[in-house]
C-alpha cells in the first residue's frame, strides 16, 4: 500500500476519535446519563444497555454486509443465513453437545465458515442479480430447515439458550452490562477484521474486480477467489454477530435466518452509506433505535386518536422505515455517510467522486 499523503493530524485523528469513542462506550454502563427519546432509561439500566447492545450486534452485522456489498460489490440476499448459523450453531452445540461456551463458539464459527464456503462457491457461478436470487434461495432453505427440524432447533418457537455451559457472569438481566461489553468487543473485533480486509491485498483485489472484473483478470489475477474469500470472511463476521445475538437475547427465533433479516441489514447499510464502514455502523445503530422507538410511538395515545388514514401507516414501524429507505435510495444516493463525505470533500476542495473513494478513505475509525 502506498504512503498516505496528508498531514499527520489528519491521519491520526480518526484513530484517536475511534479509541475515545470505544472508551466512552465502554464506561457508559458505569454512568448515569439519560438521553430522553432515544434510550428507555438512564444508561446503567438493563433496558438501555440491552438496546445499545442490540445496536452493536446489528452494527457488526451491517459491517460484515458492507464488506460484501461495499468492498466486493456483491448484492447478497442470503446474509442472514450466516448470522443464523452463528446463533443457531452455538445454541445447538450448547444444547445438544453440552459443550462449554468457548469451544461452542469455535464450533459455531466453524459451522458458519463451512456453510459460507459451500453456498458461496455455488452462488458465485452467477453474478449480479441472479447471484442475489440464488443467495436468497439458500437463505430460504436454511430458514425452512430451521422451522422444520423442531427437535433440534425448536421450530417456530425458537431456541432458548442452554445456560449450563455459559459462565454465570453472562446470564440474566442483572448481568446485562457484561453482555453489553461482550457486544462492544464483538463490534470492535468485526470492525478490525473488516478494516484489515479493506486494507489488505485481498480487499484491494475484490474492490478492483468490483469496478472492472475483466481488467483484473487480464492482469492475471483471480478475482473469483478473492470474492469467495471476502464472502467467507463476511459470513464469519456475521456468525460472530449471531453468536453475540444469541447470548444477548438468551435465545433465537427462526426470523434470525430468514430473508427479512437480510433485507433489514440491507436497509441498514444503504441507509448508512454503502462502502463506508462508519456508515454501516451508523445505519445499524440508527435502524435499531428507530425500529424500537417507532414501535413505542405506534402505541402512543396521540397516534391512536388520529383518523384511520394516518393512524394505520404511522402505527407500522416497518412501513415508515420502508418509505424512508425508498426516499434514501431515490434522493440520497450514497446514504448518510456518502452525503456527509462528499460535502466534506467539496469543502476541502477535493473532487467528490461517488462510490470510488469510500472504501479507502471512508473516515477510518471514526466510529469504533
Amino acid at each position, binding site marked *: 500500500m502506498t504512503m498516505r499523503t496528508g498531514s499527520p493530524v489528519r491521519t491520526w485523528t480518526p484513530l484517536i476519535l475511534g479509541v475515545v469513542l470505544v472508551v466512552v462506550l465502554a464506561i457508559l454502563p458505569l454512568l448515569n446519563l439519560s438521553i430522553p427519546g432515544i434510550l428507555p432509561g438512564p444508561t446503567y439500566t438493563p433496558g438501555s444497555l440491552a438496546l445499545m447492545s442490540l445496536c452493536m450486534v446489528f452494527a457488526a452485522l451491517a459491517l460484515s454486509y458492507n464488506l460484501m456489498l461495499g468492498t466486493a460489490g456483491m448484492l447478497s440476499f442470503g446474509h442472514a443465513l450466516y448470522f443464523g448459523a452463528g446463533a443457531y450453531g452455538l445454541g445447538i452445540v450448547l444444547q445438544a453437545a453440552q459443550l462449554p461456551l468457548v469451544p461452542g463458539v469455535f464450533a459455531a464459527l466453524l459451522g458458519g465458515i463451512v456453510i459460507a464456503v459451500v453456498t458461496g462457491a*455455488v452462488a458465485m457461478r452467477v453474478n449480479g442479480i441472479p447471484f442475489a436470487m440464488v443467495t436468497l434461495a439458500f437463505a430460504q432453505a436454511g430458514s*425452512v430447515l430451521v422451522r422444520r427440524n423442531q427437535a433440534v432447533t425448536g421450530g417456530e418457537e425458537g431456541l432458548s439458550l442452554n445456560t449450563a455451559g455459559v459462565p454465570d457472569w453472562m446470564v440474566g438481566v442483572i448481568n446485562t452490562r457484561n453482555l453489553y461489553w461482550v457486544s462492544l468487543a464483538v463490534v470492535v473485533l468485526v470492525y478490525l477484521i473488516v478494516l484489515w480486509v479493506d486494507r489488505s491485498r485481498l480487499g484491494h483485489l475484490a474492490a478492483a474486480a468490483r469496478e472492472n472484473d475483466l481488467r483484473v483478470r487480464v492482469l492475471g489475477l483471480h478475482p473469483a477467489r478473492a470474492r469467495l474469500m471476502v464472502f467467507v470472511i463476511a459470513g464469519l463476521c456475521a456468525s460472530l454477530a449471531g453468536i453475540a445475538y444469541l447470548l444477548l437475547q438468551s435465545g433465537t427465533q427462526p426470523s434470525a435466518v430468514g430473508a427479512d433479516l437480510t433485507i433489514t441489514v440491507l*436497509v441498514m447499510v444503504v441507509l448508512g452509506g454503502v462502502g463506508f464502514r462508519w456508515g454501516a455502523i451508523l445505519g445499524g445503530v440508527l435502524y435499531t433505535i428507530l425500529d424500537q422507538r417507532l414501535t413505542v410511538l405506534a402505541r402512543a395515545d396521540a397516534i391512536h386518536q388520529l383518523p384511520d388514514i394516518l393512524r394505520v401507516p404511522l402505527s407500522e414501524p*416497518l412501513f415508515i422505515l420502508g*418509505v424512508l*429507505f425508498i426516499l434514501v435510495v431515490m434522493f440520497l444516493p450514497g446514504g448518510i455517510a456518502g452525503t456527509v463525505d462528499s460535502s466534506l470533500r467539496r469543502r476541502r476542495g477535493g473532487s467528490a467522486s461517488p462510490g470510488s473513494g469510500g472504501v479507502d478513505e471512508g473516515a477510518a475509525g471514526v466510529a469504533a
Partner: protein
Amino acid sequence: MSTLVLTLIIGLGLGALYFLVASGLSLIYGLMGVLNFAHGAFLSLSAFVGWAVAQAIGADSWGGFLLSILVGAVVGAVFAALTELALIRPLYERHIEQVLVTVGLSFAAVALFDGIWGTDPITVRGPVWLSRTTAVLGASIPNKYWVLIIAAVVVLAGLVVFLRRTRYGMIIRAGVENRGMVTALGIDVRRSFTLVFAIGGAAAGIGGVLAMHAMTYVSAGLGGTLLIFAFIVTVVGGLGSLTGAAIASVLVAVLQQVANTYLGGTGDFIVVILLAVVLLVRPAGLMGKAA
C-alpha cells in the same frame, strides 16, 4: 398409483401458480434487467382486494369469483404500472438501486397491508365446487388445482399470442433479445417498460387471487412466500425466457410435490438442491442465453 396421480396433478397446479408469478418477473428482468422484489406485494394486494370484492358480491357465487380474478388482474396491473412510473423510471439503468427500491416497496407495502388487514391470515371461501374433488384414475383431485392450471394455460397462451402477433409484443421480444439494437432502430423501448410491468402485475394479480383460493387464506406474507419460489423458477428456467419459466415452474413444483409425498416433506429443500445443480451445470438456466 392414485397417490402418484394426485401428487403429479397437485404439482402441476402449483407449477401453474409459480408460472403466474414467475412469467412477469422473467419478462421484466429480461427486458429491463430489474429484479422486482415488489412482485410479491402486487400479488398480496390483488388477493386482498379480490377477496374484498368477492365478499361484497357473494363469496360463494361464480360471479364473485370471476369478478375477483378480473379485479385482481386490474389491481396488479395498475399497482405495477405505477411502481414502474414512480420508482423504477427515475432510476433508469441503475440496476442495483432499482432492486433496492423494489425491496423498500415490498417492505413498506407488507407492513401497510398488515396494518390495514391485520397480521392474522384471513380464511376465505369460494364457490362450493372449488372445495370439492374430481376423481381422475382413482385419485381425488381438489378442483381448485384445475382452475389454477386453466388460468396459467390461458395466461401463457395470451402472452404468447401477444408477444408473437402484436407490434408491442414484438418490440418487447426484440428488446429482450437486444435492447441496444431496438433503440438504434429508433424505437423507444422505455415505453414498453411500463407495459411489461403492467402485464407482469396482471399475471401476478391473477396468481394472487387464485393462490388465496388454493391456500384458503390470505395474508400480507402470501406474496413473499410465493416470490422466493418464483425466483428459483426464473433462475432455473433462464432469466428472460417465458418458455423457460413455464417449463421450470412445472419441473420445480412437481419435484417439490413428489419430494414432499415420497421423501418425507423435503420438497422445499430439494428445490434448492435442484437450483444448485442447475447453476453448477448450466449457470444460464435451462433456456437461458449462454453467458
